[in-house]
């Protein structure tokens, strides 16, 4: 069953919202415990979420 364009956009926006809510806490945890790779991945996803908003909203 294929989803409508509106539903897809809504679900991606919801995913970005979840990312922007959860990842700052994960980034903080990674940086305070010197988990460098986790920190880099987290910050990259955080920024990518914002870039998605700039490009697709």
């Amino acid at each position: 069953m294929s989803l409508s364009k509106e539903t897809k956009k809504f679900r991606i926006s919801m995913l970005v919202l979840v990312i922007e809510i959860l990842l700052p806490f994960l980034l903080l945890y990674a940086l305070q415990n010197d988990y460098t790779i986790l920190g880099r991945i987290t910050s990259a996803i955080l920024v990518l979420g914002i870039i998605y908003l700039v490009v697709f909203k």
Partner: protein
Amino acid sequence: MELNLSSWLLSFLPILTVILLMLLFKWGALRASAMSWLVAVAVGLIAFGGSWLILAWSQVKALVLAANLLVIVWGALLLFSLASEAGTLHAIGLFIPRLSNDRSIQLLLIAWLLTSFLQGMGGFGVAVAVCAPILVGMGYSPILSIVMTTIGHAWAVSFGGMASAFESLIAVTHVPGMLIAPYAAILFAISFVPTGVIITFLGTGWKGVRHAFPAILAVSLTMGASLYLLNANGFWSLSTIGPSLVGIATLVLLTRLPGYQGIKSAVLNGAHELKTRDLVVHLTPYILLVVIGFAVTLIRPLNAFLNQVSISLPYPEIVSGLGFVTPAESSPIIHPFSHPGMVLFVTVLLSYAILKREGMLINTSPRRILSLTSHNVVDSSLGMIVMAGVSTMMTHVGMTSTLARGIAETINGVIYPVVVPFVGVIGAFLTGTNNNSNILFGALQAEAAGLLKLNVPLILAAQQAGGSMGSVMSPTKLIVSCITVGLAGQEGKVLRKLIGYGLIPIIIIAIATGIWSWLLGGGA
């Protein structure tokens, strides 16, 4: 960071980005805010000694800041969806002509006084979310409806929500509220006539302004007098609800005059006449909102009982690479059970039960209400979180401080009072609330006023006024407003129309502050 022109311009870049993208390129608020976030993070990391740890802390603080407001927005949107589903907004549209068929009187009642009252009750987003769709139902364009309701309640932000913004100003500046409040009352009262005139002009043209001007003057006088009396006696927590009710009472009395009754037309466009009982049932959500809001706010034992539970998070000291220090602090204290968001959710639950019992909602209604709400909350939540992130990032690397110091240190004592409200506007535009604008700039305004030998309470009153009027134009609030009239993503278009008219009361307040300060011998 050292204060110079380039550091000041870099600090201003995120704000400029939002304004330009929305005004010139007609971007939606969410998209423009996201670009502003990228600019703020890039400038903060590259030029202001920011780090990923600072970014992480600033985003966590932004989430806490946004969460406090998001609960209200979610509640307001849920209430709006419920009211739409039950036909409440349509019923209000049918009821207003009963009071008066005069178009300008209807407009003043809804766009100015009802919005102000609801701002006092529900706070963030509720006023426009309720009133703009009513105006659309009366035949006004969606953009005009948002502009008129936004300008109408701009003054009311200041002392709405238990005057939390004003309390913040007192807390950060340590200047007694009794000294600031009378000045604030007079500055807001000065803006009343222009506000009424702008709304009437936008809705009915100059002819309508000439016709409604005596009513605007009478309402402004009674509202201004009640605002001053409440503020001067320390009752600022009632300084939105009180004057709004006085204004509504004045206008309703004026509708008894033959000149303001308009042409009677009982049934329009085939609409059936509304029985009084049906109207009361339809109005249940808003009657309950007022009753519960009043009870939680004004019944002291109940308020004290609900306030027993409070939440506050500790934050560590944060130092940027260039040595800018954000001291260890706690997040603002949140009382979940007396929070306006909780009032809204309880209102929605009780209203649903009553409206369902009265047959105004059907079994499939909850699904439609939740679907409409969930589609609307995602973008508004993202917008608020992103814009709060811009604000906290700028604060933690010293960009906000650079911005404010630049203004305070380069402008002389005669001009500074005129600039003060606009600093408040910038803070509120950036953060979305009068409260956060006061937290950001309140202490700096007091310090600058002291250094320039100005009247500190007057300057703080002007900061409060600018913050109040700037907050309604912020991208975060526009997202919520636009959703309710089907203009999601078109916030840039609304801002273009809003900014010209919305700045008029602010300019009047700025000029009044300048003249008043000069008369008091400021800057001499």
